[in-house]
C-alpha cells in the first residue's frame, strides 16, 4: 500500500474504532452499575428506539431539515445579494453593515422567544435559522469581492469593462471560494438556528421537529428517544456539511488550490 492510501485507510478506520470503543464502554458502564434506562439507556436500547420510533422520528427529521434548508437558501441568497449590494453601493454598506453585525453578535437563543411572540411558529423558526446562517455568507462574500487581484482589475479597466462585467466576470468568480466557505458554515448554522428556535418554543410549541421531540421526550423521561433524536440531528449536520463540501469541491476542482490535489 502506498503511504497516502494507508493514510486514508487510517483516517477512516481510527474514528470507527474509537466509536466502537466508546459504545462498548457506554454499554459496560450501564451494565456494571445497573443504571436504569430513564437515567441512561444502553446503546442497544437507543438503537431499538431508533427502529421502533422510526416513523415519528423520520417525520420530525423531515420537518427540521426542511426548515434548515429553507433558512439556508434564504441565507445564501440574502447574504450574497447583500454583499454584492454593499460592494456596489458604499452608502448601503455604511448604513446597514453595523446592523448585520449586531444581528450576528446577539445570541439567537435570546432573540427566539421574541420572534415566537410576533411570528407564527414555523416562520419564527425559519427566521432564526436565517439570522444565524446569513452572516457568514455576507462576511465571506464581502471579503471575497474585496480581495480581487489589483492587476486583474487594471486589465478589466484597460478593456473598458462595465461595472456589471467587472462584477460578473471578475469579482463574483474570484469570490467563489470564499462564498463557498461561507455557505459551508451557513449550512451547519441554519440547522443550529432551527433547533434553537424549536427548543425555545419548547413543548408549548406546535412544532414537530427533532428538537421539539427532544424537549418533549425530556419531559416524559423518554431518555432513549432523546438520544435517538440527538443522533439523527448530528447525522443531519454531518450530511449537510458533506453535501456542501462536495459541492464546493466540484465547483473549484479545476482551478482553486484548495480543491486541486497536487500530484507528488
Amino acid at each position, binding site marked *: 500500500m502506498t503511504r497516502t492510501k494507508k493514510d486514508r485507510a487510517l483516517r477512516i478506520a481510527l474514528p470507527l474504532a474509537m466509536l466502537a470503543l466508546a459504545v462498548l464502554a457506554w454499554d459496560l458502564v450501564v451494565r456494571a452499575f445497573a443504571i436504569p434506562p430513564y437515567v441512561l439507556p444502553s446503546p442497544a436500547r437507543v438503537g431499538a428506539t431508533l427502529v421502533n420510533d422510526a416513523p415519528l422520528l423520520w417525520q420530525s427529521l423531515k420537518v427540521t431539515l426542511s426548515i434548515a434548508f429553507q433558512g439556508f437558501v434564504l441565507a445564501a441568497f440574502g447574504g450574497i445579494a447583500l454583499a454584492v449590494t454593499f460592494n456596489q453601493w458604499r452608502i448601503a454598506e455604511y448604513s446597514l453593515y453595523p446592523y448585520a453585525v449586531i444581528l450576528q453578535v446577539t445570541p439567537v437563543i435570546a432573540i427566539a422567544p421574541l420572534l415566537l411572540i410576533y411570528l407564527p411558529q414555523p416562520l419564527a423558526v425559519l427566521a432564526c435559522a436565517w439570522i444565524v446562517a446569513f452572516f457568514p455568507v455576507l462576511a465571506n462574500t464581502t471579503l471575497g469581492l474585496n480581495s480581487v487581484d489589483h492587476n486583474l482589475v*487594471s486589465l478589466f479597466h484597460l478593456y473598458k469593462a462595465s461595472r456589471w*462585467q467587472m462584477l460578473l*466576470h471578475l469579482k463574483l468568480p474570484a469570490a467563489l471560494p470564499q462564498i463557498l466557505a461561507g455557505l459551508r458554515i451557513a449550512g451547519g448554522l441554519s440547522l443550529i438556528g432551527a433547533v434553537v428556535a424549536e427548543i425555545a418554543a419548547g413543548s408549548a410549541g406546535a412544532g414537530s421537529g427533532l428538537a421539539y421531540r427532544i424537549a418533549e421526550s425530556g419531559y416524559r423521561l423518554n431518555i432513549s428517544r432523546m438520544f435517538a433524536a440527538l443522533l439523527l440531528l448530528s447525522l443531519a449536520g454531518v450530511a449537510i456539511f458533506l453535501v456542501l463540501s462536495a459541492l464546493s469541491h466540484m465547483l473549484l476542482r*479545476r482551478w*482553486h488550490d484548495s480543491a486541486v490535489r497536487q500530484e507528488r
Partner: protein
Amino acid sequence: MTPRDGAIVSLRGVGKTFENGVAALDGLNLDIAEGEFVPLLGPSGCGKSTALRIIAGLSEASAGAAAAPAGNIGFVFQDPTLLPWTTMAGNVALPFTLGAAGNSEPHAAVARALARVALSEFAEAYPRELSGGMRMRAAIARALVTEPRLLLMDEPFAALDEITRFRLNNDLLAVWQELRRTVVFVTHSVFESVYLSQRILVMTPRPGRVFAEIAIPVSYPRDERFRTSAEYAGYCRQVSDALSHAMGGAA
C-alpha cells in the same frame, strides 16, 4: 497634446506624486516611434510601472502631458494575471468577452494568438495546470489577440528562470518581427534589454526620469550567437555603466 511627429507614445515633463507623498516620477520625457521596441531600464522602485500605467491610461499623471493611442492597447504584467477559473482559450478571449472590438472572428483570432505562442494544444487547460512560462505566454497571447497598436510589458519575464526567459525573449522577438507593433518593455535586466532592442532608455532612481538613451545598432534577427558575442558583452558593459551612473555613481 499630440505626439511628436512619428511618435506613437510621447511623455513631456510627466510627474507622478501619490497621495502618500511618494514622488514616483518627475520630469519624465520620452518619445517612442511606431513599430519600435523600447526597453525602459531602471532599478526597482524607480517608477517604471507607474510610467507604463500612465501610458496605458490606467493612471493619471500629476504633472506634464502624456499622449498615447486611446484604446486597443495590450498590457502584460509581471505575473501572468490570468483568470484561474477559465481555460487558456477563455483567458485569451477575455478582451472579446469584455467587448473589445477589432475582430469579426473572435474564435479564429484566439486560435491564432494561441498558436503564435505555441499553446494551441493547451487551449482547454486551466492556468493551474500549466507551468509559469506557459502562463506567461498565455498572457502575451491575450495581449496580442486584439492586434493592439501598442504593447506594454511590465517586467513580464522577471519571475521566470533564466532558460525560460531566454526562450521567451526569442519568441517575443519573433512575434515582434512578424507583427511590427510598438512595444514598451519594462525591465531591470541589462542583458535582456540589450538583447531585445536597438534603443534603451535608462531611468534614474525615484523620482524616475530618463537618464540616458543608448543605441544598440545591431540588426535583427538576433540569436544565441549574438548573446555570446564580444559585441553583446561590450554593449552590456556600456548599459551597465550608464545604469550605475544613473544610480549615483555607485558601481
